[in-house]
């Protein structure tokens, strides 16, 4: 994709060439803050009007483009339904909880809480309705793992869906004691390896049903006859193809810093882990590190980080910048988001996963951040992070996906798969 951005007008010949358009595809990404449209020759990006229904807003701003395509040629992905809230109950951190979390992230789930089953009685109950509860634990020959404490906890929990992906021996008791539970094959095989397929399909379908059920998004099916996929799922599919568009040297990480969340996609080479999957790349999400919808929590996270004041000094601003509503303040927030995300995935913070950041050769940035920061501003933050946190002069190459090529590639790849 080499065309310029933002509301590029279609030429007359394009507008009038219905035959040509019908052979092309229109790719649409509906994000929490922006939506983007891509055709073979054109890329548009629009800030969403939150007073309008998504479809009405879309048709108002790009109706001509959409009208020139048949429903079968329109492919949509979205992260605007907010994602599914997920609670995972597992029996160990290293296997059941980690495997289920990995599958959930790779299926496009954003919000994940975990409960270690042996301590289930110590956990407070989430007050919000949970979209899906996942129960997992034990290889198939290890039964009697779950008992009444699980059923007592679930009896007090409010959830819409529940799935059991643990050992076969406990499945009948689970079926008997939990109403409407879906039983799927175990995600842990007899060699303690992960089995992703069934849970991944289940979660992707649930996401699909969630989209269909959300008033705002289900209207999008008026303009497409294809399945609407979660955006992160599409981006994850792109990564093996990334060489086609960028000179990216492996291993790399991709940071998608958007309005509501920050997604990280990383090569598996960067993790020393017991998790052996068929994916070349995995994903994780920081749900409170967006620069628009979750701006306040980003500022809170920044204020809690001991190095942030030094970073602000380095950027020649004070913390008063957090109160400002200027372009400069947005830039600083974006820079902080990069720094905080790198901190969270480094060994500086113990997290679900820590990446070997000194081995990274490239950092690819996509999402709204590429529209706000220059390459130099991003590199400045990255080298500050490496010096301050990792005490290293290591300087990975920064690649900016300013034209959203990654998402376009993913959408095209997805379309080829269909």
């Amino acid at each position, binding site marked *: 994709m080499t065309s310029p951005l933002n509301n590029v007008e279609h030429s007359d010949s394009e507008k009038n060439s219905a035959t040509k358009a019908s052979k092309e595809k229109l790719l649409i990404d509906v994000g929490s803050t922006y939506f983007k449209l891509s055709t073979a020759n054109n890329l548009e990006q629009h800030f969403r009007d939150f007073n309008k229904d998504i479809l009405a807003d879309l048709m108002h701003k790009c109706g001509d483009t959409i009208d020139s395509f048949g429903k079968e040629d329109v492919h949509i992905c979205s992260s605007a339904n907010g994602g599914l809230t997920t609670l995972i109950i597992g*029996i*160990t*951190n*290293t*296997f*059941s909880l980690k495997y289920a979390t990995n599958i959930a992230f790779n299926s496009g789930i954003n919000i994940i809480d975990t409960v270690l089953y*042996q301590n289930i009685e110590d956990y407070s109950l989430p007050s919000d309705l949970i979209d899906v509860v996942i129960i997992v*634990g*034990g*290889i198939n*020959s*290890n*039964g009697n*793992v779950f008992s009444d404490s699980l059923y007592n906890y679930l009896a007090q929990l409010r959830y819409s869906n529940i799935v059991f992906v643990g050992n076969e021996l406990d499945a009948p008791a689970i079926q008997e004691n939990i109403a409407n539970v879906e039983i799927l094959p175990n995600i*842990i095989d007899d*060699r*303690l390896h992960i089995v992703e397929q069934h849970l991944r399909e289940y979660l992707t379908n649930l996401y699909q049903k969630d989209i269909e059920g959300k008033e705002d998004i289900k209207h999008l099916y008026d303009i497409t006859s294809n399945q609407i996929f979660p955006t992160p799922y599409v981006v994850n599919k792109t990564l093996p193809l990334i060489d086609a568009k960028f000179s990216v040297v492996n291993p790399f990480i991709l940071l998608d810093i958007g309005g509501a969340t920050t997604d990280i996609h990383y090569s598996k080479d960067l993790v*020393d882990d*017991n998790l052996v999957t068929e994916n070349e790349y995995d994903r994780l999400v920081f749900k409170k590190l967006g620069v628009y919808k979750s701006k306040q929590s980003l500022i809170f996270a920044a204020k809690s980080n001991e190095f942030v004041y030094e970073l602000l000094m380095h950027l020649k601003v004070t913390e008063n910048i957090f109160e400002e509503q200027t372009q400069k303040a947005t830039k600083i927030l974006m820079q902080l988001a990069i720094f905080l995300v790198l901190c969270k995935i480094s060994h500086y913070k113990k997290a679900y996963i820590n990446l070997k950041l000194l081995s990274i050769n490239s950092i690819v940035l996509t999402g709204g951040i590429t529209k706000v920061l220059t390459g130099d501003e991003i590199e400045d933050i990255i080298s500050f992070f490496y010096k301050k946190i990792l005490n290293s002069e290591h300087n990975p190459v920064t690649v900016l996906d300013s034209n959203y090529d990654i998402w376009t590639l993913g959408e095209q790849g997805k379309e080829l798969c269909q």
Partner: protein
Amino acid sequence: MKVVTGVVGNDIHVVANRLIELSLNARGYEVFNLGVNTYLEEFFDAAVETGADVLMISSLNGEAEGWSREVKLLKAKYKHLDDIIMMIGGNLVVGTGNAEDIVPRYKNYGFDIVCHQVDLNTGLDMLETLIKDREIEARNK
């Protein structure tokens, strides 16, 4: 009977690890081999997931002692591992040392069987003896 085994810490002695797996298989155990570079928490978590009866840690580069000091503390966090047989073997010190000093030290760390520079089959015989003793003890209760 299920055995979880692996090489602890930053130790990549894979040949010994493979030999242990083969020998355990030959003696009829169901083996879950976590391989080299395994952290202590992974051993315990694997025991929980598999319902293992024996946790067998090996080490050749001698760093086992640093990890073993954490065994009691970590094991105490697990609610259902009280009966698991804890076994460690290989070269258990950096440099030289004699078994009379090393074995009680490791037993104090929480291991039931300690094999410092002991032949693999001898170590597995020790395991079988302990299993039989426990069975007799259980029957007599």
